[in-house]
């Protein structure tokens, strides 16, 4: 690396490996202060969880990063560009799946590409690939109402992956999914983060889920909403997905987070 690049990297140590930077973002809904002067960095290629009690502004923050909501003040920078609207660099996975009930699995998975003007044969070929990746081969012609909650979210995930965005935004993606499917999803998330060089921003209200899947956990506290703590688990990432829940660090972090969140449970 050249001298000048080195100097630059030192000058802005955080930005250099951040895919997404949120700076001083505030958002009010009428009198409700949903977010107040919130700043947060999201490292490239990693999964960051936003964890906090319900109503603390997680969805609001995610929608601002998605460009679906405008902040009242502050800015969001993605790969060096300040964003003001949705873009092909981001894709969203919705808590309630947001599938088109009148369209087949195949069309749903290809829908992001359809909106981006990709030709039918091409987008269906890509969709087929991601349908296979999420384990839904054979269900291409099925309709959402014929699928279980877990399978529907697999469709939502495949749709978000199919557009090949750099940043994936997931809003409590597994909260409407049953426990067994949720565990499977969490394991799949680990593989996904390792396998795809993408940045994941993952909203959850489950402490265990956050600690299990995250490289970085941002704890959000309400009234006014702020980042109270950032935790980066280190030791158990390499131990294999079966051993994570038994690792002492995993258990300590879960306890620690619970200790700071318990005051906010009414």
């Amino acid at each position, binding site marked *: 690396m050249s001298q000048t690049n080195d100097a630059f990297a030192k000058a802005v140590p955080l930005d250099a490996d951040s895919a997404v930077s949120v700076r001083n973002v505030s958002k009010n809904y009428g009198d409700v202060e949903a977010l107040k002067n919130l700043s947060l960095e999201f490292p490239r290629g990693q999964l960051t969880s936003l964890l906090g009690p319900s109503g603390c502004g997680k969805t609001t923050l995610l929608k601002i990063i*998605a460009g679906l909501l405008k902040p009242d003040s502050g800015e969001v920078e993605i790969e060096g560009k300040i964003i003001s609207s949705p*873009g092909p660099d981001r*894709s969203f996975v919705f808590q309630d799946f*947001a599938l088109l*009930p*009148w369209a087949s699995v195949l069309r749903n998975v290809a829908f992001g590409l359809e909106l981006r003007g990709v030709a039918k044969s091409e987008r269906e070929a890509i969709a087929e690939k991601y349908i296979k990746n999420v384990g839904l081969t054979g269900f291409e012609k099925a309709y*959402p109402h014929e699928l279980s909650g877990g399978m529907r979210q697999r469709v939502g995930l495949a749709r978000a992956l199919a557009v090949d965005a750099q940043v994936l935004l997931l809003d409590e993606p597994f909260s409407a999914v049953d426990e067994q499917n949720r565990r499977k999803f969490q394991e799949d998330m680990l593989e996904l983060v390792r396998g795809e060089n993408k940045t994941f921003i993952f909203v959850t209200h489950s402490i265990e889920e956050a600690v299990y899947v995250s490289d970085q956990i941002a704890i959000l506290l309400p009234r006014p909403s702020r980042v109270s703590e950032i935790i980066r688990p280190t030791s158990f990432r390499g131990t294999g997905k079966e051993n994570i829940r038994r690792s002492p660090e995993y258990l300590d972090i879960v306890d620690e987070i619970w200790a700071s969140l318990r005051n906010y449970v009414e």
Partner: protein
Amino acid sequence: MTVLGYRLPGMSSLLLWALLWEVVGRTGWTFFIPPLSDVFVTLVDVIGTPAFLKAMYETAYAFLAGVFFAVIIGIPVGILIGKSRLLDELILPWVNIFLSAPLTALVPVLMVLFGFGMKSIIITTTLFAIWIIILNSRAGVKQINRSLVDMARSFGATPMDAFFKIYFWAALPEILGGVRIGVIRAVKGVIIGQLLISIVGFGALFELYSNNFMMKHFWAVLIVLFAVAFSLSEFLAYLERRVSYYAASR
């Protein structure tokens, strides 16, 4: 309906009423009710006559044109006011007023404005059908799942994309319900228009029959109209059922 343990097909009770009509007609109780069998014989005769065919053609033309305008204007207007608060507040009160207004009273005004012809009848038909189509399309859009809209926007949907790929389909079950009721109202509209203007279509025909006490002819034409209106409504109800699979799971 079941009789003696047998399940009878859908509309077999109609047969009973038909029989009653026949009997009352045979007693010769009133000229107003000729025997049903005579009515059907007349019907077969009448259907081929140029007067009937002309009336049928003119009615179908006015009806289809009226429904066409009601649908082509009503659905987009309904979707737009469903999406926009401002347009909703501007337009919705008028929709509600016209929906419940006695539109028949407007027909003479229309005749003054648009003449005693086809144009007035088409406009009357549209006026009868359009309000419920607007209202239902609006209701369909109102109940749309917000995250579908967010989803489309997050993948870069243009407003046109959102309109044709999300709003229209999400509202389709309600839209079809509105179109079905609108079509039934349009049948009323086209006939009332013709009766009041009475120089075209069935208006002219009814005038002719009732002035000459041709009750068999009168009933024959009425039965044809009822059957057509009923079939139309059933066909649209069938379309509605085709989309009901997703109406529940939006």
